[in-house]
């Protein structure tokens, strides 16, 4: 699977317009030297070898963790990705946790108090939150909290270059809120419908007939609704990354998304390829995770004869 994706990316890079060696050499180099320089660059990049050999070389170095060097910053791509991973994980992780902390109780309450005001309000808010593009929401957020109220920063991770935890948290508030709202909106709906399905099951009525109170019955339903939820959660992560990319861009958050978009503008192929591989690996891991989690959580699968 991984091999297929690697081949696909390689082919894609080959199809790209323009010669990477050309772009490597400054345009203003002397006309006579330029051909020499391009040739040298081509040899250096291995572009003079037959295509299959190039692939093997590329794939070999890929397996060693060597993703080549950025055209623009000349940093090793692998290192660049690693550097950018931290802020992105921090952003996504906090938003995911915050979003779920909102979604779980709200979804449960909406299901238990079905067709009440709470349910309708939660439903309306989540539909609106799903329909509003995250970058537009982010712009609204900046406009209100950074521009008008001047209570929150509009961009970056720190004011100074210092790593100060308080400052970091302060900078996290807006981007995390924007992302968490999207998470909360999506999962409130999942949890609500999962809970409704479980609450309608016969076993819930049987638990109430045993003399259980509403809390105990709800917990039984929640445990059962978790089973499909964990797989949905695992499969949601890649989609969530795209939300993070957008938000990073607008808040100048120094994460992978910002890196990818900058690379996109300057056509930094190695960085884009590295990012593509990263996304592909993430998708595969999340799919695997979904399968594994499913067998762990559901006793019907776990104890199958």
């Amino acid at each position, binding site marked *: 699977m991984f091999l297929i994706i690697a081949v696909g990316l390689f082919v894609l890079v080959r199809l790209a317009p323009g010669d990477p060696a050309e772009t490597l050499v400054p345009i203003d180099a002397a006309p006579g030297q330029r051909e020499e320089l391009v040739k040298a660059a081509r040899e250096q990049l291995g572009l003079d070898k037959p295509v299959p050999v190039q692939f093997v070389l590329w794939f070999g170095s890929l397996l060693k963790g060597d993703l080549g060097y950025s055209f623009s910053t000349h940093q090793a791509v692998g290192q660049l990705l690693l550097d950018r991973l931290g802020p992105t994980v921090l952003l996504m992780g906090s938003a995911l946790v915050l979003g779920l902390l909102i979604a779980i109780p709200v979804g449960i309450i909406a299901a238990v108090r079905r067709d009440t005001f709470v349910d309708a309000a939660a439903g309306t808010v989540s539909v609106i939150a799903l329909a509003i593009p995250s970058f537009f929401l982010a712009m609204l957020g900046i406009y209100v909290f950074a521009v008008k109220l001047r209570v929150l920063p509009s961009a970056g991770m720190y004011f100074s270059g210092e790593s100060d935890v308080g400052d970091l948290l302060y900078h996290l508030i807006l981007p995390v809120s924007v992302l968490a709202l999207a998470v909360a909106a999506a999962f409130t709906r999942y949890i609500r419908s999962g809970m409704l399905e479980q609450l309608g099951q*016969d076993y819930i009525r049987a*638990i*109430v*007939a*045993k*003399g*259980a109170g509403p809390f105990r019955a709800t917990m039984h339903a929640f445990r059962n609704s978790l089973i499909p939820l964990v797989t949905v959660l695992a499969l949601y992560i890649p989609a969530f990354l795209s939300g993070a990319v957008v938000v990073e861009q607008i808040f100048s958050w120094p994460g992978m998304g910002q890196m990818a978009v900058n690379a996109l503008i300057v056509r930094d192929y190695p960085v884009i390829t590295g990012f593509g591989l990263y996304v592909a690996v993430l998708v595969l891991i999340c799919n695997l995770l979904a399968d594994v989690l499913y067998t762990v959580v559901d*006793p*019907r699968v776990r*104890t199958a004869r």
Partner: protein
Amino acid sequence: MTAAPVLSLEGVTLDLKTGDDYVRILRDVTFDVAAGEIIGIVGESGSGKSMTALSILQLLPPKARLTAARIGFDGADLAGLRPAELRKVRGRRIGMVFQDPMTTLDPVVQVGRQIDEAYRIHHPRAGRAEAREKSLAMLRLVGVPDAQNRAKQYPHQWSGGMRQRAVIAMALVNDPEVILADEPTTALDATIQAQVLDALMRARDELGVAVVLITHDLGVISQVASRVVVMYAGGVVEIAGTRELFADSRHPYSAALIHSRPGAHRRGEPLVAIPGRPPLMSDLPAGCPFAPRCASPYKSERCVTQRPALEPSVDGRLSACHYRDEPQEVIA
């Protein structure tokens, strides 16, 4: 009935909200359950027999309105209890067995734990070991072999018949006075049904629990129940001892029901089919609800205009028919 009733329903009336209107689902349901007896409630789909059971413990859909005169149980009126008090009766003093054993157990909790839970809800100070001991005792009583190990399995590892026994064990674990069994064997095969009915009868014999057995199957009733409540269109039409009912019923509906069964006829004979279909609860006839389908020779104008009440006949049997004292002939 010589024994004092443990449970007595008096004029239970239930409205359910469908769409914008309330529809009357139960009309003035009245009957007693004696200690230690097996009483059958029989009726076709939509007759209200399941709703009657659910009304007793108030396990009703959210938009239900119970306007019972009284559901008497141990000196209290269940219809007037607050939720917290009601919970002390549910599962503790009145147990419940549902129709489909495949769906009444929580699929992600071990069977034994679910029975333990039923015990521990009502015995909060009881330890795990004590609860498990009770659970195993009940599982053995209802005939689950190798209870100790099977209790650690999940419901999907149990067959339907075994699961229904587990549900019965769960209903019995707090030593209740009454068990409400709502079509407990309908989803099961004949040979398995026989085993489960045996388990219910053993519970009655050994624990002295009264069983309210709700079923559409007159055969099951005739096999295990000592008395029968016949329901039609949300009301009780007849209450009789099982033998009397089968030999000489006092209501044309009960009579027709008994005779519409193939087992009551010789092979190939036309069966007694009740023409038409039960009325819609939202659109009950003004008189006797059964009048439009009734084939009794005594049927008269009175049946169409005046709704008969459940009253004793000359020989003391309860029937909701204006002509309860006439012999009920069944016309094919």
